[in-house]
């Protein structure tokens, strides 16, 4: 149950398919709760709370004196006979504190119970019923939320003079239910739309059963947080009321002790022991409860859990490698010669990635999300990277741009960039300033969802302009404005849209604006991480055509990442297929389409229709993508591979060179291409000329391709 709420929060946390994010959802609920407890601060909070609860229960039995009994030892400082000293009338303060613990706890817990019940009733009803009932209840909650609660409480308490704990509990509950109700309403609303609730409704299950079985269990964390918050609030409010003399001042509570201390001018007589313990007790208990609540907060909102985000290392984008000491020299800015159109035999390498490895680090274990990835990108080339979700393609994109945050860590490898003057530099070895120059000047990135990637509260023009301000400090305001208009024009956005906010643009226009941001400084490389996935097909087509047109006009190189293989084949010069964090095949797009060499590539190609060519049966790949934390031995694709043989379990295949009959060259990480492989099963069969081998792909059977 707690599991689902974690999953809920998890799904909100959004885009990245980080294996670390998935880790929390795949554990049992009990373990998730244990994890909450394991945080030292949370544990401290729980322990302190328990101690206070225990004292409240046994207080009257262990208190050394009658709290109201007057004695001769007036205003005595703490001593062996009176551990916390005495009051003006010689009453024992320790005894008053112990009795007071009970009164304060009763009010705190009682008010929290009543308030929580009210919140749940109103919140869940409003959220579940919807319509007019929801409107009315929400309005009521909002009204109570803005009414200042303490003055209202004081009025109510004053009209109930000398009421006991029960009166105070009721007063606090009446003024305090609104916040919880509002949060729970919002939660119920979102839960109601979720599949498992819809399913239960469709099967005609009774409303109260759905609420009890499907809705409430998913709100446990929120309800617990509201409950603990109310306990703290109620104890504070009770203390305030008691201090103001609005409760029965003869009933001992922490607030009453402070009331008598104030009335007797304990301050002026220097009797610090009279007012220190009560306030400290309230503060310590309140802190303890808040600490528990933080634990719950971090549980509800997993982003808060990511530790170490602000550390030096994280600021250096999680590169393990030590920075290479280099004499910093800013050579004269050399304009790159205009690039010739890309040809497949070009050797003009602009980016060379070698043995890149990215791990997700959690609790001492490392999950490799990308391992031993090497490829080169040449000037003007479009390199397409394909793979299922979780194959490491987005992780790779972030690594190239050095945008990783904990728990991701680049533990190995080199990313060598060729500068305009012909020199090379390792991107992973750059310091902050160099990195800042490199970013956007040389390399820009276009994210999957422009909706999320554009700052929602900043005008589109301003988001383009700030890049220019940061990198071209000498440009005047007019020049910048002209450039913004020019960039928007390049991607086909009317100039007057520069003043629009992202939410005012259509989806396609937002994505084009995003591309305009990417083009702002004429970068050499643009990394595109599923730039069109969120768009409908027509818009997708427009955007792709725009990108290709711009590429030809401006001559940048593209690393294009998507799971849409048909798109990729169409627009890429070279294709790399990723599986389980590794590149399993790389080839020229044409060769790849006609002769996929890796069984996985064949499976992928067999799972979508082609636009032209003969009809064929669509097949998929059986099974699901591998769990990166528990990769199978040997080849990661082995369990799903119809052609696997014994050696596949023993050896992790490296990329083998495969030459096609007409001279095209592919590289595939499959032992079928190794020396001495069982030739009978080799996929590079005699029918290589007419597309994917239909006989082998049929064996792959149908399965869901994600």
């Amino acid at each position, binding site marked *: 149950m707690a599991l689902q709420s974690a999953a809920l929060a998890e799904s909100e946390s959004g885009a990245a398919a980080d294996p670390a994010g998935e880790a929390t959802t795949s554990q049992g609920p009990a373990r998730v709760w244990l994890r909450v407890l394991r945080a030292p601060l949370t544990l401290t909070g729980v322990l302190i709370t328990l101690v206070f609860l225990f004292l409240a229960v046994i207080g009257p039995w262990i208190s050394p004196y009658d709290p109201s009994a007057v004695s001769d030892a007036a205003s005595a400082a703490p001593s062996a006979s009176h551990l916390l000293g005495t009051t003006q009338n010689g009453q024992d303060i320790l005894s008053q504190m112990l009795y007071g613990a009970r009164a304060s706890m009763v009010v705190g817990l009682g008010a929290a119970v009543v308030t929580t019940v009210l919140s749940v009733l109103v919140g869940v009803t409003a959220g579940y019923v919807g319509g007019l009932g929801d409107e009315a209840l929400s309005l009521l909650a909002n009204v109570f939320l803005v009414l200042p609660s*303490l003055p209202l409480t004081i009025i109510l308490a004053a009209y109930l*003079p000398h009421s006991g704990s029960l009166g105070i509990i009721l007063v606090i509950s009446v003024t305090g239910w609104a916040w919880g109700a509002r949060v729970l309403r919002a939660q119920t609303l979102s839960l109601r739309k979720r599949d498992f609730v819809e399913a239960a409704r469709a099967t005609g299950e009774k409303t109260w059963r759905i609420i009890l079985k499907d809705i409430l269990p998913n709100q446990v964390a929120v309800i617990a947080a509201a409950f603990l918050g109310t306990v703290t609030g109620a104890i504070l409010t009770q203390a*305030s009321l008691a201090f103001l003399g609005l409760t029965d001042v003869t009933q001992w509570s922490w607030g009453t002790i402070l009331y008598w201390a104030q009335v007797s001018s304990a301050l002026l007589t220097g009797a610090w022991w009279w*007012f220190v313990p009560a306030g400290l007790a309230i503060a310590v208990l309140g802190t303890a409860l808040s600490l528990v609540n933080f634990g719950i907060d971090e549980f509800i909102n997993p982003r808060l859990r990511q530790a170490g985000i602000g550390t030096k290392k994280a600021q250096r984008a999680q590169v393990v490698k030590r920075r290479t000491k280099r004499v910093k020299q800013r050579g004269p800015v050399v304009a790159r010669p205009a690039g010739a159109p890309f040809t497949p035999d070009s050797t003009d390498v602009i980016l060379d990635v070698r043995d890149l490895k990215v791990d997700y680090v959690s609790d001492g274990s490392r999950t490799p999300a990308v391992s031993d990835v090497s490829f080169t990108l040449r000037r003007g080339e479009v390199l397409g990277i394909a793979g299922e979700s979780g194959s490491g393609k987005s992780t790779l994109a972030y690594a190239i741009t050095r945008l990783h945050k904990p728990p991701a860590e680049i533990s190995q490898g080199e990313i060598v960039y060729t500068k305009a003057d012909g020199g090379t530099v390792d991107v992973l070895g750059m310091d902050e300033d160099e990195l800042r120059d490199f970013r956007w000047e040389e390399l820009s990135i276009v994210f999957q969802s422009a909706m999320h990637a554009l700052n929602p509260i900043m005008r589109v023009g301003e988001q383009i302009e700030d890049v220019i301000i940061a990198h071209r400090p000498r440009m005047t305001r007019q020049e910048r404005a002209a450039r913004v208009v020019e960039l928007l024009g390049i991607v086909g956005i009317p100039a007057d849209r520069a003043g629009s906010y992202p939410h005012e643009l259509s989806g396609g226009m937002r994505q084009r604006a995003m591309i305009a941001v990417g083009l702002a400084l004429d970068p050499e490389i643009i990394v595109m991480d599923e730039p069109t996935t969120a768009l409908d097909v027509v818009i997708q087509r427009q955007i792709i055509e725009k990108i290709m047109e711009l590429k030809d006009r401006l001559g940048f190189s593209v690393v294009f990442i998507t799971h849409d293989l048909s798109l990729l084949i169409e627009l890429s010069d070279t294709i790399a297929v990723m599986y389980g964090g590794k590149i399993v095949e790389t080839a020229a797009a044409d060769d790849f389409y006609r002769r996929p060499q890796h069984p996985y590539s064949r499976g992928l190609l067999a799972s979508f229709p082609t636009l032209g060519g003969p009809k064929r049966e669509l097949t998929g790949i059986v099974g699901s993508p591998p769990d990166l934390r528990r990769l199978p031995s040997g080849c990661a694709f082995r369990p799903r591979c119809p052609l696997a043989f014994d050696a596949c379990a023993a050896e992790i295949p490296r990329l083998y060179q495969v030459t096609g009959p007409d001279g095209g060259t592919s590289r595939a990480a499959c032992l079928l291409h190794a020396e001495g492989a069982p030739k009978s099963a080799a996929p590079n069969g005699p029918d290589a000329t007419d597309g994917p081998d239909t006989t082998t792909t049929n064996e792959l059977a149908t399965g869901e391709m994600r």
Partner: protein
Amino acid sequence: MRILFRKICFYLLTAWAAISLNFVIPRIMPGNPADNLINQFHGKLSPSAVKALRVLFGESDKNLWQQYVSYWHSVFTGDFGTSYAYYPSQVSDVLGQSMFWTLTLITVCTVLGFVIGTALGMLAGWKRGTWLDSLVPATTFLSSIPYFWFAIMVVYVFAITLKWFPLSGGYAVTETIGLNGGFIGSAINYAVLPALTIVVASVGGWLIGMRNMMVTTLSEDYVRLAEAKGLPKRRVMYAYAARNAMLPSFSGFAMSLGFVIGGSIVTEVVFNYPGIGSVLFKAAQAADYPLMSAIFLLITVLVLIANLIADIAYVFLDPRTRES
């Protein structure tokens, strides 16, 4: 603009609800508080005051609707009758004198608390995982302390032991109230400790809220993109992360403000500050219902106005709300 219109309607409705609540509460309370109160004065109340008190508790020959109408009349004319705690002063006079003090103190402290708390929260969120994390338990402790107790400790340390600041009151009695240097200086001197109490106790709430939002915002794509754009760190922190992370602080302003005001009221009592809090304390001691009702109304209206201001600020900060 439509959203502002709706907000104003909402606050008008809330004001109506609060004012009506204030009418209803005395009439549904058990017992006979009017008689108790009249007896306390042992016949020293003027007949008109006795009559006003009975009217407050609904003991009137008029029917409920007529009572309600005349109640509204008195709300708009500011005629809340005679105060018993400050007998024979009028309630409106008592409030008129004390309101200024509280308004100034709370406005300054709320702004200070918000600015300091949000700024620290921004830093703590930005530098998550560094020593700044220790701000969280520390400020949690500070915000778990009852305001009035913290006030007592502050008085004990700074006024009684160190004698740096005056013990209680709002200004030195030797000064004459008015816009003169001596009075203003003295008022500031007297306000330091109460202000310190309120600011320190309220910073924690803003800090923790802002820090959590900041950490959440930092993993948004637009912050990542801002970094990828090679923008200066400050620009990423302020314009991209903090500006977005701040928004919930504004929409949650209502709840926090109510909390700060509640705390400030009790703080005033400790310092014997000449504001509404101290008046409320006296009113509660003397069971001065007319005064308490009026204070409740006054504070509610002020809080509603503050909330409206926060909402307007929100509309300016978040363009998405401006959509019609």
